[in-house]
Each structure stands twice: as C-alpha cells, then as structure tokens.
C-alpha cells in the first residue's frame, strides 16, 4: 500500500478525487520500467543504499508522488535479510563490554577495543566496525524481489491509490448491478472475512445497495474499519457494474469528505477471479431441472434474499406455475454438519418462503453426518436428483 503522504488527491469542496494515472501513458510506462529495472538489479544492496538510489531516482518532493508511490509498491515486494560475517549482536556484546571495562579505569581507546575483539574472533578491525550494526534495518540486504510486469505495476498503483483513500473512510455505500449469485456469495464471503457489517437494500430486481461499516459505526463515525474497507476493494472491483461512495475523514483535521469510485474508472483487481464461475455440476442440474419440472418454472436465481443477519444467495428459484409458490434452492459445496444446521436454523427464523438445502454425502468434511429427517435438508449420494428436488419442493409447499 502507499504511505499516507503518497496518496495523490485533488479536493473540490467536500469531495476527494483520486488522481489516477493512465496506464497506457508512455511516460508512466517508462518510469515503471526504469524502477522495475532498478529493483531487479539491486539484489545484494542494503536497504539504506536502495533508499539512496530511490532518493536519486524519485526524489522526495511532493511533485514526484507517482514515482514515489510506484517505488513504494515495489519495495513492498522486496525481502531483506541480515548479511554479516559474524552475528552483529555477538560483536556488540564483546565490543561494548570491553569498551565499558576500559572506560571504568579511564583508558578508553576505540581502535584498541576493535582490534582486540577482531583478534579474538579472527576478523579484521574494519569487519568488526562495519558489522557492529549490520542488523539495523538500513543495513539489511535485499535478497529477493517478487518481479511483475509494467502493466501490473501501473494497475496496482491505481488500486493502491483508491485504497489509500479508503483507509481513512468511516464507511461506504456500494451499488451493484446485475451480478450472479456466485458473485454475491463471493462478496459476502469477503465481507465476513474482513469482519465488515452490511445493511442492504434492493429494488427486488437486479440492483442492490450495500452500506458497509463495522459494529461501532452505529455510535460515532470511526475510521477503525478503514483497513478492512480498503482490503475489501479488490473483491468489489471484480463486479462488472458498480458505484462506490465512501465517507472519508481526510487530513490531520479529519475533515469529512466524499470519495466516489465506479466500475467505469477502470480499476483492475489483482485477484484471480474465481467468483463468477458456475460449476459444471450446477449448470447440468439446472438443465435437468428445467427438463424435469413440468409444473414448475426454474430460474437461476439472480434475486438475492436479504435476511436480518445478512444476505443469502441461493442457486435456484423454483416457482410453481399454478399457485405461484416459490422454493429457494442452494447446493452447498464442501460442508460441515454444524454449518448446514446453522444455515437452516437461520433461514427458518428469518425467511418466510420455503427453501431447500442440498448437500452431497461425499462432500461432507465431518466424520459422521447422520441422516436427516429435516424436510429442508436433502443429502444426496453423488449427484442431486432433479426428481427428488421437485418432490421435496412439492411437499414443502404442501402440494
């Protein structure tokens, strides 16, 4: 991430504008290439030396924020380690003890101390002198650098810039259009992972509005959850169409500011996207259900179900043609008995409409799952049977 003084923003009234860079700009590509080369060739240098090289290359004045930010992102990909012919703490141990003894009798002689310790350890006095603080941060050496491409660096910069602003945010409102349940499940997982709380509103169709913050936000606006909100951003960036509005406390005065970000800004997530992927088994089940269900319409559920305790993103919606009854169906992947029971208990208290949870015996990670008399839990052997799903749906709505 960028350090706070590297975040390049413009203010207009009470709004913050991130000054993104154009990733195709030959100037920035050139700068990125040069910086990458500098890091690639700096293996073996001390951190202090690299800092000096970087001070030359990107300076430290505020007109050079982009190169400084790029350098910071590269520095985050470096691994440093102590390199010394003798453990520095042992050198200090011997040198300081001897020096103190000399001092006590009023006969401190720096060169003599270094020479004596050098003689004892079979080193030169210079090696002792130089090795004395080789474990200080500035004296550690670069041992490896996780390389990546110019484009990746420039994309990462723009995302880091937005994250640098979100770090100071007290909460954000995200509007998401037309995403799949798989995507929403991924977003919900990410929210949980980053320990965020969410209030949700929907138009009942394809647009959902999420208000994200944390438990203490109810009482006073706090930036305690800024790190979590910033870390959530890369997952959000995988949505095709969204807008984000963040409530930011900016500068030393923590002035309230607004920050807007939308899919049109073109930020690219560095995460590998698995979220939107619909497993083949689910697609097949969907096709089979459509064929099988004569009196039911089957929809891959684009509709999310808002619950008191969060969002639920089932896989299918079965709608009975005549009565209009609806049954929500989710097929769980790897599951544990307790998790499945918890989900069912939650849905039972918070949802009015009937639902069916299908789980595979083979995917159970518990030793014994027992069998279930619960009409909302369908434990199948290898693949879920469409006929059984329909039968259960019919009994759930008492047809």
């Amino acid at each position, binding site marked *: 991430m960028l350090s706070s003084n590297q975040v390049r923003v413009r203010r207009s009234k009470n709004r913050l504008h991130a000054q993104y860079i154009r990733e195709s700009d030959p100037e920035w590509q050139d700068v990125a290439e040069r910086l990458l080369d500098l890091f690639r060739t700096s293996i073996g240098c001390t951190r202090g030396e690299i800092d000096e090289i970087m001070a030359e290359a990107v300076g430290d*004045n*505020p*007109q050079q924020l982009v190169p400084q930010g790029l350098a910071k992102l590269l520095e985050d990909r470096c691994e440093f380690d102590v390199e010394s012919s003798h453990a520095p*703490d042992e050198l*200090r141990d011997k*040198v*300081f*003890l001897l*020096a*103190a003894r000399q*001092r*006590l009798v*009023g006969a*401190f002689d*720096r060169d003599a*101390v*270094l020479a004596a310790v050098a003689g004892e350890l079979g080193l030169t006095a210079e090696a002792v*002198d130089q090795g*004395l*603080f080789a474990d*200080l*941060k500035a004296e550690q050496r670069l041992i490896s650098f996780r390389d990546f491409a110019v484009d990746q660096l420039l994309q990462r910069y723009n995302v880091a810039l937005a994250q640098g602003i979100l770090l100071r945010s007290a909460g954000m409102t995200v509007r998401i259009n037309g995403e799949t349940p798989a995507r929403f499940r991924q977003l919900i997982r990410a929210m949980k992972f980053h*320990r965020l*709380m*969410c*209030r949700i509103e929907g138009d009942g169709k394809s647009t959902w509005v999420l*208000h994200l913050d*944390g*438990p*203490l936000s*109810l*009482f006073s606006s*706090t*930036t*305690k959850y800024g790190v979590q909100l910033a870390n959530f951003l890369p997952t959000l960036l995988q949505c095709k169409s969204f807008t984000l509005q963040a409530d930011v406390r900016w500068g*030393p005065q*923590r002035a309230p500011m607004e920050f807007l970000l939308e899919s049109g800004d073109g930020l690219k997530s560095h995460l590998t996207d698995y979220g939107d992927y619909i497993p083949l088994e689910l697609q097949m089940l969907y096709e089979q259900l459509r064929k099988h269900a004569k009196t039911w319409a089957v929809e891959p559920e684009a509709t999310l179900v808002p619950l*008191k*305790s969060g969002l639920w993103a089932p896989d299918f919606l079965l709608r009975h043609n005549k009565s209009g009854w609806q049954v929500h169906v989710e097929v769980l992947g790897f599951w544990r008995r307790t998790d499945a029971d918890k989900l069912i208990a939650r849905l039972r208290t918070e949802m009015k409409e009937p639902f069916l949870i299908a789980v595979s015996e083979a995917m159970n990670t518990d030793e014994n799952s027992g069998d279930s008399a619960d009409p909302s839990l369908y434990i199948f052997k290898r693949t879920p049977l469409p006929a059984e799903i329909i039968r259960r749906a019919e009994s759930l709505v008492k047809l």
Partner: protein
Amino acid sequence: MAEESITLSFDAGTLVLEDGTLDALRECPHVLHDKRTGSFRAEGRHYRAIVEHLRANKIAYVDNARAWQETPWTLTSTRTPYPHQTEAVATWWKQRGRGVVVLPTGTGKTFVAMLAIQKTARPSLVVTPTIDLLNQWHGELSQGFGTPIGMIGGGSYDLQPLTVTTYDSAYIHLDRWGHRYGLLIFDECHHLPGPTYGMAAVGSLAPFRMGLTATPERADGLEHMYPELIGPIVYRREIKELSGDFLAGYTTQTVFVHLTEDEQSRYEAARRQYKEFVASSGISMSGPKGWQNFIFQASRSKEGWAALKAFYESKRLERAAGSKLVKLDELLTTHSRDRIIVFTADNATVYQIARRFLVPAITHQTKAKERKQILERFHSGEYTVVVTSQVLNEGVDVPAANVGIVLSGTSTIRENVQRLGRLLRKKADKQAILYEVVARGTAEEFSSERRRQHHAFQ
C-alpha cells in the same frame, strides 16, 4: 418469564441486547436500535451502566456478554506499600473503581496497579505504550502474582486472565479481548485520548478502569476525555511533594557549546532560507497550526520544499554538532564511575554515538531480548553508559542511572519531565544530575527554555 429476559452478548467492541420486551430494551441507557441486525446495541463501555440499570429495575437478563468471573489475586510480594500508594488505591476504589491516578515517575505506579488488581479481583488487562514497557510489566506482574502472565504485542499473542498489551495491539485486537477483562489499567494514560487508541476504552466491557500517568495534560487538550474513557482524575501528587522521601534528590545543569565556524555558517544559511520562505509566504509559526501550515505550503513549490530541507539541515546541525560530541566525550570521562543515560532526538545520532564511543544503544529497532540484556548489564555495572532516543523517555525502569545527558530533544515539557524521571528512582542516597547540552546561537536555546517550564526544573 424466561422469554422476557433480555439477552446480552458481545460483538466486536459492542454490547448487543436481544429478546426481552421492546419497552425494556428502549429504556436501557446508551442503547440504539441497529437496523443492520435488527437488534439493540451499545458501546462496550456502557456495559456497567446497562447492567446496573437492569438490576435496579429488576429486569431479568441473561448475560452472554462478559467472559470473565471474579478471580482473587494474591500478591506474593511482601513489600509494604508507601502511604501515597495505599491512599491512591483507596481513593480510586471509593470512586467506584474508575479514574486516573497522577503520580510522578519513579513513585511506584506499577505497584499501585498491582494493588488495584488485587483489590478488584477480576481478570485484568494492562495497556502500555511501548514494547519495553510491555516486557517490564510482564516481568513485574509475573513476579508480583506468581502466575503466568499473558502478552499481546511485540510478536506474542497469548491471552491470560492477567495480560499486558500495547495501545496499538489493544486497538487492533479489541474484538477479541473486549469482553474478557473486568479491569483495565492504562499505563501512561495520556496516550489514550484520541480517535484511534481511545476506541480500546470505548469497546471494552470492563466496569473497572484505572489510568496512570505523571503528565495527564495533552498539547491538544483531549484530557477532557478521561472521564468517559477511564474516569475522572481521582488522585494526584506532584514531583516536589515526593522528592527526597520517595525520589532521589537531583540537580539540573545546562551546558552551552558553540558550533564550529563551518557549522555556524551552514546553520545560518539554512535558517535564513527557512525563515525567508516563512516570511514571504506569510505563515505564522507561533499559532497551534503553524507547523502544519508550513508543511502544507512547502509541499506546493520547489522553494517551499528547499526551505523544508533547509529546516531539517539546521536541526541536524543543532543535534549532532561536532562540539556536542566533544562535550559528551568530556562528560563521559568526568562521570566514568557513574551510570549515564545519553538522550538524543533522533536515531541517526544515537547510532553515531554508539559507534563512536562504543556504547550500547536502545532504539525501537533494538530487539526485546537485547534491550533486556543491556538494561540488566547497566544495572549490574557491566555497562556504564546507554544511549537512546525517545525509547527510554517513558516509564522504563533504570534505577541505577544517576546521570542524564540530554544532547537534543523536542521542546515539549512532558519529554523533559519524563527524562528527568528516569533518573529519579530512589536507590540508597542517590543524587542525580541532568545535563542539557545546548548549541549557543541556535533555535535550541528557545526549545531548552520552553521544556524547562515545569516546576521540577525551577
């Protein structure tokens, strides 16, 4: 009846109230309805007020929130408390176990905390500013109570009924410890007020809280937040009241040195460049936001940036003037039989001195194990000099030290009082000296004036 009971639970720094009747929930103090979860919620710190309200009104409740039980602690130490220590704890307890105790450095704040832990008989968390203090508290509590002490911070994560942590870790891990302790001790509690660290006090359920400091006042005036975060100041003794009886006697002495001709001309050129920029851009440096305005203006132009660099250059010259190091050499020789702490404003100078005089250094980069060893050897006399920047300003015990040499520092009174405090821990008939080495003809003369505006230096 059981169905009407209110259920209390802890959720990441907040207290969640569920079940019960709507009226009963609404009447609870400090409680808001949370649309996100459909439940009622309050900040963790109001736990005590809410439980007291429920009990007073005989409203049934199930407490799933607090994860501690009354736990008796026995101090194994046979130490007899000083009168001011007994008095401090008694007064604090009378104020329902909430409040700030102000005692000069070196008058046994740690022991006051231990007495408070024993009195309260609850699992307790001690929050402290630095890794050094973390280690020190860990050691003292282990000895004092003869039980394993937990530690969060400095690379450890181990929760025990008695645990020490740092302000940073307390803030970061609040969700995980907020419901586990009945008593919080905020060491050097002037660090607590503020939007970040303050959250640790806001989100904890602990009904009992004690703040400890020698210097409760803050430059930003946020000390007014003590009552809501900890409790009011309940007990206060000043350095002069306890000096001699409980603290070592001391003298302070300012030593002036001159810059070399070359340093002087570089210094003046740098100051001129800085001052001209300040004057030409019309910034008033005396106001509370002077420095901030300067940085802001400086970042907008080449001249401004050059002026900022010139300012830092002048600071470097003040701090590490060649003649200061010569004077230091002299003082080290004069006091070759004493135990000396050398204080500087920055780490670069610390290491410059450590290399030149071959004396151990303690900075934030020094690992816990090595710090401990250095302090032990300083105590035993194997080392007679330690050089440090701001790390030893606060709290860390160095009872052996009797000479302090301030080579450079900020102009804050607090830093100076704290540094003096390092030297004043009572040991036999110790007489302490604090030297302050100041470069003549530099801005340091003013900083020196300012930091001695405290009755301890008059």
